[in-house]
């Protein structure tokens, strides 16, 4: 069975501090991983995809197969980064659907 774990429900950092949102997954094959973000009063939207190795809004995430992790990082937090972040897994053989973690609320304080 595939599973996504986000151990922190709430992460509070100061503006300008580094951010790391943790995501661990459980899956026996080669997963595709995503980070979604939900800003206040907005819909869930894709932030970045493991497959594209991109940096969006200063965020990056590296797949570590040895640690089965896909942590989201940003060197300097901005106030506008405050949002709910969800890690999601697409597992082959599990059908074409995403499994989501429980989400982490990021609060960037001034």
């Amino acid at each position, binding site marked *: 069975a595939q599973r996504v774990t986000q151990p922190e*429900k709430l992460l509070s950092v100061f503006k300008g501090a580094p951010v790391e949102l943790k995501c661990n997954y459980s899956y026996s094959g080669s997963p*595709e991983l*995503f980070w*979604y973000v939900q800003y206040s009063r907005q*819909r*869930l*939207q*894709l932030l970045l*995809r493991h*497959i594209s190795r991109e940096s969006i809004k200063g965020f990056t995430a590296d797949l570590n197969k040895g640690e089965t992790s896909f942590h989201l990082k940003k060197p300097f937090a901005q106030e506008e980064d405050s949002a*709910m972040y*969800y890690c*999601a897994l*697409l597992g082959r053989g599990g*059908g*074409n*659907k*995403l*499994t*989501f*973690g*429980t*989400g982490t*609320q990021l609060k960037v304080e001034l």
Partner: protein
Amino acid sequence: EADIYQTPRYLVIGTGKKITLECSQTMGHDKMYWYQQDPGMELHLIHYSYGVNSTEKGDLSSESTVSRIRTEHFPLTLESARPSHTSQYLCASSENLALYGYTFGSGTRLTVV
């Protein structure tokens, strides 16, 4: 504009009423999904469809039903609403899940009183 639309955004309804939550997308996506989400909690897949006349139950058991008669339309129906159905319902679609993930609608927040 190509997008995915959910109506209504908010719905307060009495116990025992039949309700249909609408979801339409104008992107021509074959795959569509319904998730249920309580505030601040994880998303649970309740239904999905790979195309016209294809519907499957998701990981979370739900008393709701869905239909997919047209590519662009994926409505969710509750025959008899109960307070336990109070939740947010999110609709999503996808062209290529591995490449693009989901595009989500704005959600319908349902309250059954």
